[in-house]
């Protein structure tokens, strides 16, 4: 019962990286890849293929399953046999993907191929051959697997040896705190908190909110020397519910007085995730209003959409409104307000309407028609609107103070809020 291995496929479904499988026949991963590609081609939309595919007859004792996720152009497969928890596999895949991001930035088949030696080393360290994930903390990993850096590349091209060989820490895992390495030194000590909140809402055609919830994450970038012990307090932490924390957070302290006490890992990490549940009012308001009418006729239809900001001071940025025009939709033609643009993607049959900035209380409109090969076109019954509000948080979570103990210096602190929204507006 364990993860048998990991496969990364490129956009055409061909494997670029494979790991594990030493104890199984070479056909084992191939059968899974085949099963996956088969399932993807059979699903009405590739996204509808079951995320856990059962793969019988792989030649090992007992059948196995394949868990897969798609990130960017790449698809990550976690193969498992026996009665393993699929969540365990998904959690590992997510962790591995975030490690890759941390090492290489944006992920693409090219980057992985160029740095395959690092990728393989990472796989060796993160997934033990017995199928148990081992070291997945970025801090510990960077001690053992050196990230590709410009310097090491230049050196290797220049043929200078010795210098490029990793000056690895000779006492890995000597740190008493598993997530933080010892002997961290910075010239300027700084720590940044990014409070990112996402509003997810479903609104009915009268503008009434059916569901709305705000999920927040506190992204942290910690560049502090030594072993600092931090105490972060908020001035209004009460409406934060359903919290989950980075293991560094002392849970007892939080349940006692809603203060976060922790020794941070070095570098970037997510300190906490929460759900914002405002007291009193039932829902978080959606910061804009959409008035839409869609009429379907034979082989086509027309639509008329008006969008108005409900904010009074802040600007909604990168507003993207989309409407799926239904099976058989072939083209659309629209008239839109100034400073907005539209396009229709005939492959996905989605009409996009982009507004760079929706200033306070401003309105925009989109009018148009579409044609379809379907006699009775059935466009989706909802618009999907996504937007960003920089320097804003729905919960207006405020950091009261950050106390540091255990170290003498005074760090530079920064707190930022940013919000995004993903709203389904029915018509």
């Amino acid at each position, binding site marked *: *019962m364990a993860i048998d291995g990991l496969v990364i496929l490129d956009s055409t479904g061909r494997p670029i990286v*494979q790991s594990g499988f*030493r*104890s199984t026949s070479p056909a084992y991963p191939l059968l899974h890849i085949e099963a996956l590609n088969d399932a993807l081609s059979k699903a*009405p*939309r590739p*996204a*509808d293929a079951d*995320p*856990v595919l*059962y793969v019988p007859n792989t030649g090992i*004792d*007992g*059948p196995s399953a394949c868990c*897969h996720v798609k990130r960017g152009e790449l698809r990550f497969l976690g193969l498992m046999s026996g*009665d*393993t*928890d*699929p*969540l*365990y596999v*998904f*959690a590992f895949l*997510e962790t591995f993907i975030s490690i890759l991001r941390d090492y290489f930035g944006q992920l693409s088949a090219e980057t992985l*191929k160029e740095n395959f*030696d690092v990728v*393989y*080393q990472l796989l060796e360290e993160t997934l*033990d051959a017995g199928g*148990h*994930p*081992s070291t997945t903390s970025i801090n510990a990993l960077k001690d*053992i697997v050196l990230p590709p850096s410009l310097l090491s590349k230049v050196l*290797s091209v220049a043929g*200078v040896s010795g210098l490029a*060989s*990793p000056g*690895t820490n*000779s*006492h*890995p*895992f000597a740190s008493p705190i*598993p997530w933080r390495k010892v002997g961290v030194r910075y010239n300027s000590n700084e720590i940044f908190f990014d409070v990112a909140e996402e509003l997810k809402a479903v609104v*009915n055609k009268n503008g009434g909110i*059916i*569901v709305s*919830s705000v*999920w927040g994450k506190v992204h942290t970038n910690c560049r502090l020397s030594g072993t600092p012990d931090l105490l972060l307090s908020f001035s209004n932490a009460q409406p934060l519910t*359903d*919290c989950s924390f980075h*293991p560094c957070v002392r*849970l007892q302290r939080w349940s006692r007085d809603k203060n976060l006490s922790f020794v941070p890992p070095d570098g970037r990490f*997510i300190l906490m995730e929460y*759900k914002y549940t405002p007291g009193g009012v039932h829902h978080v308001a959606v910061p804009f209003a959409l008035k839409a009418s869609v009429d379907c006729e034979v082989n086509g239809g027309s639509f008329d959409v008006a969008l108005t900001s409900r904010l009074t001071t802040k600007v909604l940025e990168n507003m993207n409104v989309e409407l799926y025009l239904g*099976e058989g939709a072939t083209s659309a033609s629209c008239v839109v307000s100034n400073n907005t643009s539209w396009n229709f993607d005939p492959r996905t049959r989605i009409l996009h309407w982009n507004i760079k900035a929706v200033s306070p209380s401003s309105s925009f409109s989109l009018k148009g028609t579409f044609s379809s090969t379907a006699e009775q076109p*059935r*466009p*989706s*019954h909802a618009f999907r609107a996504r937007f960003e509000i920089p320097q804003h948080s729905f919960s207006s979570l405020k950091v009261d103070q950050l106390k540091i103990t255990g170290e003498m210096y005074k760090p530079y602190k920064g707190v930022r809020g940013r919000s995004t929204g993903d709203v*389904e507006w029915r018509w």
Partner: protein
Amino acid sequence: MAAFRAPPRKGENFELSADLNSEYKEKRKDAIKRVIANMTVQKDVSGLFPDVLKNMQTDDLEQKKLVYLYLMNYAKTQPELVILAVNTFVKDTDDPNPLVRALAIRTMGCLRAEKIIDYLCDPLQKCLRDENPYVRKTAALCVAKLYDLKPELVIENGFLETLQEMIADSNPMVVANTVAALTDIHIAAAAAGSNTEVFVITSAVLNKLLIALNECSEWGRVAILNALGRYETHDDRESEHICERVVPQFQHANASVVLSAIKVIMIHMRSVRSETLTKQLVRKMAPPLVTLLSNPPEVQWVALRDINLLLQKRPDILSNEMRVFFCKYNDPLYVKVEKLDIMVRLAGPNNVDALLSELKEYASEVDVDFVRRSIKAIGQTAIKIDEAAERCVNVLMELIGTRVSYVVQEGVVVMKDIFRKYPSTYEGVIPTLCANLDELDEPEAKASLIWIIGEYANKIDNADELLGIFVDSFTEESYPVQLQTLTAVVKLFLRKPDTSQDVRDRAYIYWRLLSTDPGAAKAVVLAHRPPISLPRTTVSPALLEELLGEIPSLASVYHKPEETFVGRGRIGADAIPKGGSELADDRATAQKAFQTVAAGQQAENLLNFDDPTSNDGQQPTGLAATTVLTSTPAATNLLSGTSSNPLDDLVSIFGNTGIGTNAAPPPTPGQPQTHLNAFGGLSFGGQPMSPAPPMTPSVLQAVSPPPQQQQQQGAQDDLLGLF
């Protein structure tokens, strides 16, 4: 890395070989990288084995890792050559750098070459007691790998005892890995048929696990939580203690840790006696489950499947959280389907309005499959909540009013179920349903409408005309529609004796039966049916308990016990509660079906109505069977899993119930038999009129005589029981 992408050239391996032997360090390292690159795209570079091996002794850790990677890949095919590397491995396990020590021991464990294993034991012994925790935790896992290859070595060297001691290690990561290794060995030993428990969790071990739980990595926590789930508590205080210590794990960021913790709580909560604590635990379970839904759709799906199970055991967990399960139109279908199921589970009088308006919204969506499921869900809600039934019917009528073909058809099917649950309540909608008669082209929908017409024949003025339409096209209709037409015609006759001759002619066989004893026939055909209800669970209680113990795992996601899809059964198949195997073994079902058909054949002599010796008590069996069948979705569901059996067509009409898509399998082994008996009765009743399923009575009878007598008895008992 240009060489990586270049097409294979002639003599590439030759060039690589030259580079591997180069006097320049960097050139050699680059060559190794290229070899590995070729290896990973499945090119054969095994010929370079000796050249690569030469580069094993190096100070450059990265290079060493790459060489090790190469060795692991080819150790299986070239074991003789790997022996050459053994010395370096053993030497490396003494290296001052702990990373090298760990790397060496890990690689040796992965080589899986018989010959190397004998050299592994001594270094492993040393590494298990290494001063560095990284080396210790790597060595712990290595023991599990060694056990996999040669269990006797592990036992001879006392590694098991060493591992037991390591549970008390000061480093939580070492503890976690030790637990993982011991669990692996435990499972492997059990699979191999060993009777001794390798990893017994005593209360001393328990305490160490509870301490390490809060300090190790997420993967370690999952391993420890799984072990905690296996622990058998001595009293309720101990159970309470475990629950209290595990609850904080609900706040971990890793979904897998959260669900593993929920599993432990579900297991140990059984023996918690304090009501307040139980309530408290249940209340604390809701937030982490809701949080799981903010994850990507793949994780959501697994979580939803598990939530579905949890709700069957504890319907109160998420009673106030129905809204979080509302579907978004761009959710993947697999997520929507699960959410729909859970929404109906959570439906109650206080939230039914929100649910209905949501379901109505879904019924206008693009995806046909999802629309149908949403309409089914409306029917399920109507059946579940009495006071909301009327609102459900109104919504259904609105939907049928859209005249979208598949909406209408599904609506009619669902209405039939509502009539079953609330007889004579919503007759007002019948004309609307009948008005859509022309739109129906699916057998299931047609059969449902015919059933409604037959049932309410006395309330529908032109029932005979409507049925006449189906009677005229009788020979073209599918089997289920034919059967349902027949039944309806008889009902029509009984309810409106003055009905037209034509219809009655068609029901000649029934008429003959009826003319013998109309009173009995009436009692049977128009009998009161057992009320339909929504199964609260889709799996039997015993199976539910077992699956909850498996949360989170593949078993709980598939809602099937592990043994049914994992070949090697730890618990023999017999140990699974019999009623639980929803996938009632194909063969057994078919066998039973044939036996009952045979019984029916035997009973055919009953059709000889003129025979004065005909037993009155037995006479209704045939007809009764038809009605019984219409009214027992469970029977049809039981069979619907085995489509290879031609007999299934017979009953597929009744499989439409929508209510019982997953109807709970009968809890006792006796019950399926009796349903099947009813079904056997039907087949003889229908035979003279219509294409019967291919049967070879002689063979079947040869098979069945012994059980036949009993079964008939059983059928009668059951029928009597039903009325």
